[in-house]
């Protein structure tokens, strides 16, 4: 079983620390969801994991081999970047077919039949320049490259941005089919959490450049609850527990609780305990006062 391991990854720009001592292990045969607010460091992390950008400190290894400048390791990784092509981008003039052709030459397990099927399904226009198509089509190109690459570890950055709901449904369906057939590992960074939550086997949450959570999605959501009731009762029940994102309206209070290992919520008839969705938990963990 392959493992992609990153140890102590830190990325500093002139005046900003984009990633801070990130340690994680990605195992083969799983779909990971990478979530975080804008600027949390998701794209930076994916770029470093796939050796597209250098880290300031730390190492990334695939089965013990460093991935940086390693052809053997890179053959097993695909990071299909979100294509944010502005008019003056150097890539804007390159045609989609040229991009796909280059991808077919770089990924050793490239599946042209799958690529053709996705081009047809997404109605991609290969003869158009990348700078001349809409955001949805660029996302479709990103998805096509990611899925047809057949890379053992495939990373998608905001793959559904700009896609309509039908195309998004098609993407998730194709992704799950591909995952079931091949057992490839997918890491999907997205802001549309509610929609993607069902396919995430594990969830990775980044906040301000730090990894704050990496856990099996089901187990995480089983632990997390929303406690609602009179403020005094809620405070009594949740005392000593890891509470996030409390809201108070009058005397009523709602708190999201994520008990640490070994901790349990005491039984109480004075408060209401409800399950939370991944999106609600994410908001509780990453939302800031005044915005949540």
């Amino acid at each position, binding site marked *: 079983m392959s493992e992609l391991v990153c140890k102590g990854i830190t990325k500093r720009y002139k005046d900003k620390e984009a990633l801070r001592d990130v340690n994680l292990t990605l195992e083969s045969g799983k779909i990971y969801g990478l979530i975080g607010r804008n600027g949390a460091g998701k794209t930076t992390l994916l770029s470093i994991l796939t050796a597209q950008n*250098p880290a300031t400190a730390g190492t990334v290894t695939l089965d013990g081999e460093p991935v940086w400048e390693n052809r053997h390791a*890179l053959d097993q990784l695909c990071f299909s970047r979100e294509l944010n092509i502005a008019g003056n981008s150097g890539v804007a003039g390159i045609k989609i077919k040229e991009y796909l052709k280059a991808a077919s030459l770089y990924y050793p397990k490239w599946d042209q039949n799958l690529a053709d099927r996705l081009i047809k399904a997404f109605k991609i226009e290969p003869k158009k320049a990348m700078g001349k198509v809409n955001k949805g089509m660029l996302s479709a190109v990103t998805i096509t490259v990611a899925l047809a690459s057949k890379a053992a570890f495939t990373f998608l950055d905001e793959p559904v941005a700009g896609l309509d709901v039908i195309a998004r449904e098609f993407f998730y369906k194709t992704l799950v089919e591909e995952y079931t057939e091949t057992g490839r590992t997918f890491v999907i960074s997205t802001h549309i959490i509610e929609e993607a939550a069902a396919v995430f086997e594990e969830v990775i949450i980044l906040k301000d450049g730090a990894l704050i959570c990496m856990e099996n999605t089901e187990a995480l959501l089983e632990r997390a609850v929303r406690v609602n009731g009179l403020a005094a009762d809620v405070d009594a029940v949740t005392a000593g527990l890891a509470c996030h994102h409390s809201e108070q309206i009058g005397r009523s209070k709602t708190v999201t609780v994520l008990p640490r290992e070994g901790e349990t919520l005491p039984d109480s008839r004075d408060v209401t305990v409800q399950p939370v969705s991944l999106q609600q938990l994410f908001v509780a963990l990453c939302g800031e006062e005044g915005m949540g």
Partner: protein
Amino acid sequence: MKLKTWFQLGLGLIGWSLLCAMIFVVVGFIGEGFELLGPLSCLPMYILFCAAIFAVLMSMTTYLSYLPLYLSLGSTRKETWLGLHLMQLVLAAGCTAIAALLCLILPGDPPRDLISLLPAALLAILAFAKLGSAAGCIALLFPKVGRALSVVLCMVFSGAAGFVGASATMSFPDSFRLSLPGRATLIVGAVLAALLLVELLFQRRALPRYEVRL
């Protein structure tokens, strides 16, 4: 090593150079009152000139378009570095070889005179490619300077294109013509070596820390 894409880019550039050279011939054909022999005899020189233009412009734009593209598709930095040099070499060698072949086939003085200058022409195309690479590296490190530089290079080459078109059939004194090949090869070789050094210095600084953004 995955260098196929770079090799194909080089072949594509040979094709574009031939196409542009043919446009020069057609313009000359029309300009000289539909006389074909004169402009056609200059075809090898036009090919070399167009190769030089594409070498400088493509090498420069490679840093802004193909470098991020290929790195984003899983190329290593070493591969892109080698690939860029391969592309330049394929263009220079391919166009020089075609020009040499045409010099042997085509009638007239210009092709015959050009044969002895072909080694210098090969080095000159490579030197222009290195100039483009150095400019591309500068554009990576200092984007505003790079943009200004690209405008200047375009202006210079537009002017040069006009000059080549006008001077293609000019004749030079024999003493100059005979002493030119040796001198030209030496001078162009020295310029190429200097530009290669500049390019390598910039590449050494720019490539390892380059951040892919599409």
